[in-house]
């Protein structure tokens, strides 16, 4: 089991691509921490956001709801898009059940995600 407290890193890459790496439990607090990081990146010009969940193995529905809100904000304010990589099978299934994968791109790993998104693909 991963630690309770979420650990984040964020980086603004080329071409308006923002990267957030999240490790830990994505509940209301973890989801809000990701939302705050996303807002910060958007204020710096991020219009495409990649969230790497390699260090995350457990989530809850409230946390996923906050990720949906990030996606809505990105679309409404930046006409942007959201992508994920390194999802466990359970997290991928949870995203599918709750409708995230209808609107977000999902990649197996960060290298593939960056290559695709920086080339303008993955919508």
């Amino acid at each position, binding site marked *: *089991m991963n630690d*309770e407290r979420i650990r984040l890193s964020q980086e603004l890459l080329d071409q308006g691509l923002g990267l957030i790496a999240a490790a830990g*439990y994505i*509940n209301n607090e973890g989801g809000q921490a990701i939302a705050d990081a996303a807002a910060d990146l958007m204020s710096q010009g991020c219009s495409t956001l990649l969230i790497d969940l390699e260090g995350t*193995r*457990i*989530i*809850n*529905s*409230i946390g*996923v*709801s906050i990720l*949906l809100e990030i*996606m*809505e904000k990105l*679309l409404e304010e930046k006409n942007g898009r959201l992508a994920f990589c390194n999802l*466990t*099978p*359970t997290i991928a*299934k*949870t995203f599918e*059940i*709750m*409708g995230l994968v*209808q*609107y977000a791109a999902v990649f197996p790993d960060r290298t593939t995600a960056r290559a695709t998104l920086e080339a303008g693909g993955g919508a």
Partner: protein
Amino acid sequence: MEAVLHLPVAPNVELVAAKAVETLGGALGMPRSRVEAASVAVVEACLNAIEHGGGSMVVRLRSDNAGGRAGLVIEVEDHGRGFAPEDVPPRRPAPKLGSGPRRGWGLTLIRELMDEVQITSRPGMTLVRMLKYAENGP
């Protein structure tokens, strides 16, 4: 193999139940993906118990071999006002982004992530019984 947890309402207490699922599932030799699915389900059941149960909860876990298939049985019991499970339809993603419900996904996730789910509820007691087989079915 059996464990009984009496859990108070406390921040992130649902992770205690998830840790127990991880430990017992691992002891049963369950693949990691199946343990993680059961962990998310028990987290949702505990969150429902906290939100609607009105106080502490009991989580029981035990290995099971009914029908010759090994599995992990998880029960989450609370003592809230109860509800009618048949009145809680499965949630589906909204056809348009932002138009769907934000809350109320717990039971849908539990039903989708576990192999069998039974809910018994009456005023004063709700019991969510979940089964995750150790391996995929034939």
